[in-house]
């Protein structure tokens, strides 16, 4: 029954479901857990967006030499960006834990 389905569409639908649930919890029920689900869904949908972007550029599944190391370079940029983001966030918060 499940054979032949587009698995990426299933993942996309799940991402949208988590986003809707997160928005409903955050803004409908004023529950901070909603914010977490929104963040998860943003990461989730970002991933699906990356997938479609890489597919359309002909780069999906070509990590390493086969793809000219493009996805590896994106990975390195994300890694460095994440570390700089942590440092920037700590500096912005004054290094004393935000509440």
């Amino acid at each position, binding site marked *: 029954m499940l054979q032949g389905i587009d698995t990426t569409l299933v993942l996309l639908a799940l991402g949208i479901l988590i986003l809707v649930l997160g928005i409903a919890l955050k803004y409908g029920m004023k529950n901070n857990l909603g914010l977490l689900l929104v963040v*998860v869904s943003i990461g989730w949908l970002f*991933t699906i967006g990356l997938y479609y972007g890489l597919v359309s550029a002909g780069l999906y599944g070509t990590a390493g030499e086969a793809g000219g190391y493009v996805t590896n370079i994106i990975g*390195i940029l994300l890694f460095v960006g994440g570390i700089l983001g942590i440092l920037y966030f700590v500096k912005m*918060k004054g290094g004393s834990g935000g509440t």
Partner: protein
Amino acid sequence: MGESVEEQKEMGQKIIAIIVAAIVIAFAVYGTWDFATYGFGWSFGAFMLSIAAIVLPIAAILWIIGTIIFFMELVGYTFTFPKFKIVRQKIRWDSMDIAIAGLVAAVYGGGLAATGGFVIIPGATWIRPANALTPVFGVLFGIPGAIGTAIGNFIADSLAGFLGLGSLGGFVGNFILAYVPYKFMKDHSLKTARSWTEFYFWGVLINSIWCSAYISFTLYLLLQMGLLGMPYEVIWGWFFPFVIINNAIVTAFVSGILIYILMPIVKQWGLYWADRIEILE
């Protein structure tokens, strides 16, 4: 006299720490050497496949427990350990926690994708030195770190060309990889012999096995539903043992040192999970 008993106790804990660390490191090094020498003709994989009938029900139990814990933690409940009791916990999920989860996802996902071309099992996994970061994020940042780790693995699956329904298993499996040392280690400081014993047991061995069992059982379920082309023998003889070794070898040598160095800095910055979480009995 009392001091001497205390000294003896301390010495005993140091000996236990050395023995546990030596066993776990030997296991990880042997697995790596075995794979590097014989590839998928390795004896570790053949052994795992030979006991797959025993491993399968254990993996099923770990999968069920892992899934329950994942959703429990998401909705604000946790359990106490070693005395089991379900309690509510209050994580603020303020800008700090959200930023931690997002930035951990970027660092971990990017770190994994950086080595994306070194494929070991096509469609399933690759050499992942960034796995060393998972216990670090769990121990330092707690649940936000574990959530970030889960998202990061998902991003890396897309960049490395492995995105599929199996990524759902990878999502929770990587959460577990960070969660187990966070939850089960009593002393996160790595300044005592007991802390190092706990780290090697929970943060290198058990989390690697649990993560691998979780993802492998997800793949097995997908295979049963006709949604995966990977054969049973590849899941339990290749994928399951390889993911254990792939995690254990880097965490055994790198993660402990990183936690030891970063713990005081993270505490000073006010990011340490224990300073930000509230357990409601």
